[in-house]
């Protein structure tokens, strides 16, 4: 078991945060292929800093002297519980503070949305010299706070309930692996504080139909008992939505696409069993109605047994 824990805890909770014109925290706890064993719990605290000073209005890339650099600091707590060796339950709650260095708009602060996920290792099979696994992840987000969604780019989030399905395929040979994942996010309508709004036409309602989103990623890297390094390329695509017209304000139902490159590093201590540190970053290479964000994060994880699993020897 001790060996197993060594191996697992450095993957207990990977959090990639992607930030559009707003702070859509995708607690992509499901981006890795490893599981926490039954009756273990992994507690996590993650800090993320996002910032951008250029963004795309439709496909037009610009800066904005009335915003300067838009940034957010995100403090998240989360956990992962091993319901069984094949099913993990995860959650994450972020607290966000936003700021713009120019102009007068007031930054926002507060708790955003809870992200919940069930991660199921459906297949684990030796193929050739390596190990192939397939995970299915059902996740959802629910706003925990009545924050204002319609205050982009400084709002805490989109105030949208969502549900997402992800498939993740991982293949590992020795200490090297490659992985690919696809996700479809379905979003609920949101309510804004206005009684009408214009997208490409007028709408006389306070309800906004939010476009769905797909995420695809490929990652590859090195995994050892103490150290892990991983490179990730991801693509977020909004299905539908509309472009920000030139010099207009962003709106929650805008099309928001981004191609991002990132890296994740993890280290776990031999002397402090169960403790792990992680750090990484993410950069938007190309976007649409999206900020060219640089994201840096660092986290601390601690894994411990909740109760003795009788099936474990």
């Amino acid at each position, binding site marked *: 078991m001790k060996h197993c824990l060594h191996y697992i805890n450095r993957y207990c909770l990977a959090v990639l945060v992607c930030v559009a014109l707003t702070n859509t925290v995708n607690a992509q706890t499901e981006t890795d292929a490893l599981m926490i064993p039954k009756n273990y719990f992994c507690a996590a605290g993650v800090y993320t800093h996002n910032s951008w000073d250029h963004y795309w209005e439709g496909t037009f890339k610009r800066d904005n002297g009335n915003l300067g650099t838009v940034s957010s600091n995100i403090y998240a707590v989360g956990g992962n519980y091993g319901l069984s060796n094949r099913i993990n339950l995860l959650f994450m709650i972020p607290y966000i503070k936003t700021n713009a260095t120019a102009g007068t708009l007031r930054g926002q602060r507060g708790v955003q949305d809870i992200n919940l996920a069930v991660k199921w290792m459906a*297949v684990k099979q030796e193929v050739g010299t390596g190990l192939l696994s397939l995970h299915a992840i059902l996740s959802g987000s629910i706003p925990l706070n009545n924050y204002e969604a319609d205050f982009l780019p400084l709002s805490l989030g989109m105030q949208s*309930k969502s549900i997402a399905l992800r498939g993740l395929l991982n293949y590992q040979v020795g200490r090297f692996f490659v992985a690919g994942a696809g996700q479809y996010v379905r979003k609920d309508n949101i309510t804004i504080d206005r009684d009408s*709004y214009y997208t490409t036409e007028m709408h006389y309602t306070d309800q906004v139909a939010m476009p769905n989103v797909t995420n695809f990623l490929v990652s590859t890297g090195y995994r050892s008992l103490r150290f892990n390094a991983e490179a990730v390329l991801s693509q977020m695509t909004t299905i539908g939505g509309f472009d920000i017209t030139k010099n207009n304000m962003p709106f929650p139902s805008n099309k928001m696409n981004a191609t991002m490159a990132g890296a994740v590093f993890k280290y776990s201590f031999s002397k402090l069993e169960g403790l792990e540190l992680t750090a990484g970053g993410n950069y938007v290479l190309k976007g649409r109605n999206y900020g060219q964000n640089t994201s840096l994060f660092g986290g601390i994880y601690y894994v411990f047994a909740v109760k003795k699993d009788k099936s474990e020897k």
Partner: protein
Amino acid sequence: MKKHILHILPVMMVALSVFNTSCKKEIEERNQLFPALAPANLDLDADTWTPVLTASSTFTVATPDAITSPNYLADLNEIKSYQRNLTREQRDIIEYWSAGSVLRWNEILRELVAKHNVPPYQNEDGTYPAPSAANPLAYPLFPFSNPPYAARAYAYVSAAQYDALVQAWKFKKQFNRAAPYTNDPTIKALVPKSTLPAYPSEDAVIGGVTAKLMELLFPGDLDFIQKKVAEEKLYRIMAGANTRSDMDAGEALGKQVAEVFLTRARADGAGKAGGTPADWKAFETNTAATGQVPWVSLEMPKRPPMLPFFAKVNPFLFSNATIPSIRPPAPYPTNSPEFKKETDEVLAMSNDRSREHERIVTYWADGVGTPTPTGHWNTIAAEEFVKHKYSEVRWARNLALLNMAQMDAAIVCWDAKYFYFNPRPTQTLFNIKTLTGVPNFPSYTSGHSTFSGSAATVLGYLVPEKADAFMAMAKEAGMSRLYGGIHYRSDCDAGLASGIKVGTYAVNRAKIDGAGK
């Protein structure tokens, strides 16, 4: 391993079904629920009501064909051929327009205002390009339908619709030709039946006059406007409510009335309201010379002030010479303790993170990409008027009163803004943060408060049982600017007071225009 594969399918099925049944996507918008217009009172005496500009004008409408003439029978056959197999899309057109022509054109106008209410993006050298009416489709698109521009657009369209309908009512009574569904019992009425004479069609009059004015106001959107006119004409014919000759006569009359308003609009001073760089500088130096801190643009790069000479535009309800009598008293001097106290209050609002304040600020913000504050009051008015089943002519008259008041409120407010040229709170105290964008013009008085004071006064006269509610809304709209950190309290109070004065001019007009309440 096999066991697990057997699990995959059912688990995925459950997950997919949860996935597919979650998250609402359908939205029913309020304006889709408006019922077909069935006027409680046809206002048959509307031919005697006082029009805005056309009291002494003479218009011509051709004498209609007799209902036994081959032309008229051909028109009836056209209706029957449509009614034989209406498509779903055609039924949707009927349902949409049947809520009322003045109402739908008002919505279309609000939509165009919102589409065009975006300030131009800067040039490379930090200056700003100006939209050109001569080249409306080049960037920046013409117009930039900012609040004063929009207020004027709503006023012209509403006033012209009202005058056109007063004229239409005269001809309707003169020719007294009934609707097709009355003249031919085999024609179905797909809208509520009316005994109002059908020639010329009031819907076509509205379409004709509105489209003509929109050609001036939104010249880059002719395609969209003409499509709406064609759709509206088709609607009346398909619904069995008018013949093509009713529609053609109405559209022609509408265009004639439009000419009177277009002549006024081309000479009302709006084209010169932007001023020149020398003018913009003069406001600053003249104000500084009086010892007051002058307003400066807070935008990066600095943007020219919005329509500094809008106060020279001709109002509808009084003359330009009357404006100084409505102008509010001078704001607190920028070096006075009262000014300091008000600035501190704005800072306190900026530090107050009340969610209710955020809600109020956003609800009334009506900024970039919206129909503007005057458009918001049109929405409020329209949703109220729907409940009262007004005739088309009363709809037009009531919106004309509302929108002439709001345009004149814009003139009075812009007069105060550029007469006093007072700085915004965020210019005075740098640590004030705002909950909405800071408008690019001087602070005193608040435009929202002035528009809202005028609108609430007019609506309160037209619907007295709601007068207090409208005034409470106007006050909230004004306070939203203080909560948002972009206005001092006195901007809002003084704006509301002068808005009420302007609104009273409209009420006084309403009392003697022959229409009563």
